[in-house]
């Protein structure tokens, strides 16, 4: 099957610090893929490179067959993303947030109206479409963001910890939507999470990254077998160790440090 995402020998350094080191993996089209790792392991940096927010230091990436560094806009049109933190305009209504996205992504007016209606139905927000997002609960916002990420018919959906801070009911609902989308629209899903049982239940394949390198890849069962663990959580801990990680800082912090160093502490 054609690969939706193909990453080969990907490396990202910020000055002296290597955030991602010689990482290779591929995600098949139509697959649900989980990308796991402790805090500061290189997850966010990798997602940022896949989604054109950061350039790779070396190695190659193709997303839907396109190299993000060569044609960022083409790649951007081909994926949808739900960020870890909310990224909606709270002073606009649900409909307006989607409308805004549609215009930015060049979705034609006719298609836009219809698609927005469909998606609001899908995430069960049709009745709230004219309400301001600031009045929405955390779960509603997350659902709206997923709808937004799908508006321009992306072939890949990136979900960066989509269920963080949501109650079990909402989490359950949210994953049913995602599975339904994957089934009905054939959308490839690439997600990160700290909830191991979610990854085990939802993902067809899992990659675990630690200290910037991929340390294990396979289905949930394969990873459990490999480590002789009962649960994915136990497998994860045996692969990554059980000591608590001090977060090495976000990639943004590394970038800032690096730039401050280069420019003689201008900031």
């Amino acid at each position, binding site marked *: 099957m054609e690969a939706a995402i193909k990453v080969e020998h990907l490396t990202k350094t910020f000055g002296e610090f290597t955030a991602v080191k010689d990482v290779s993996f591929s995600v098949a089209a139509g697959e649900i893929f989980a990308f796991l790792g402790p805090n500061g392991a290189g997850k966010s940096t990798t997602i940022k490179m896949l989604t054109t*927010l950061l350039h790779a230091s070396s190695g190659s990436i193709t997303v839907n067959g396109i190299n993000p560094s060569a044609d960022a806009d083409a790649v*951007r049109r081909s994926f949808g993303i739900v960020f870890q933190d*909310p*990224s909606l305009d709270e002073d606009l209504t649900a409909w307006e947030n989607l409308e805004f996205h549609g*215009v930015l992504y060049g979705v034609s007016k006719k298609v836009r109206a219809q698609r927005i209606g469909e998606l609001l139905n899908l995430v069960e927000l049709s009745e709230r479409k004219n309400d301001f997002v600031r009045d929405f609960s955390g779960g509603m916002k997350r659902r709206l963001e997923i709808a937004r990420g799908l508006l321009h018919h992306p072939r890949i959906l990136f979900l960066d910890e989509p269920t963080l801070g949501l109650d079990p009911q909402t989490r359950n609902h949210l994953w049913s939507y995602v599975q339904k989308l994957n089934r009905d629209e054939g959308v490839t899903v690439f997600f990160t999470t700290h909830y191991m049982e979610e990854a085990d239940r939802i993902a067809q394949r899992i990659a675990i990254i630690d200290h910037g390198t991929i340390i294990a890849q396979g289905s949930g069962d394969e990873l459990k077998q490999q480590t002789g663990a009962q649960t994915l959580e136990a497998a994860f801990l045996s692969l990554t160790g059980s000591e608590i990680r001090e977060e090495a800082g976000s990639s943004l912090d590394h970038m800032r440090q690096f730039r401050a160093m280069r420019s003689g502490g201008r900031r």
Partner: protein
Amino acid sequence: MNAIYIMWLREVKRFARSKSRIVGALGQPILFLVALGYGLGPVFKQAGQGNYLDFLAPGIIGMSIIFTSIFNGMQVIWDRQFGFLKETMVAPVSRLSIMFGRTLGGATVATAQGVLVLGIAVIAGFRPDWFGVIPAIFVMLLIALLFSALGMAVASRLRDMQGFQLIMNFLVMPLFFLSGALFPLSNAPAALLWVARFDPLSYGVDALRHVLTGSAAFSLSLDLLVLVAVTGVFLWLGVFFFSRIEV
């Protein structure tokens, strides 16, 4: 093109909806018009300078525009904190068009605010040359573009609202007070005039006086030339810093 339009529309919608922001932004100009216009008017007249309200009104219009535009430019910081900035940064459109749309939106809003202040000044007793109103709106838009772009450039370099007070006190306030908005530059001390010549708002307020009251310190062509040139520079700076934002 669509991206510019939707960014513009967002700014305008957000403004039109926030009644408290509109009313709040009118409070200060009204206070200045009443306290200074009526309070200092008699002194100004005795000094042989004519009607102070006619002199002051264009300055207060300029004030409301610079405050509103810079504040709008600074909205980038809110968008960063509320995460919305990421949505625009990962969209398949150039950062140039995003920045440009935002600047146009902020400038439109500030111009609308300027027109409102003009209306209030008229109610307070300001008698402009009515043929100058349309050109005045054009000048307001230029001033608004200039300072929206400046606000955006500054905000692109800031991480949170902590720096906002600093910007207000060390950038916006000096720009306003040293611009000749409140006092005539024609007989200001040489040092003050020298400083005012480096303040783009001086030329903005001066251009407004040209078209609204016919009396001013510099020539109208110099005013417009400086405004257009500085707007160009600030837009370029804004695009430069905005495109370097990391989210």
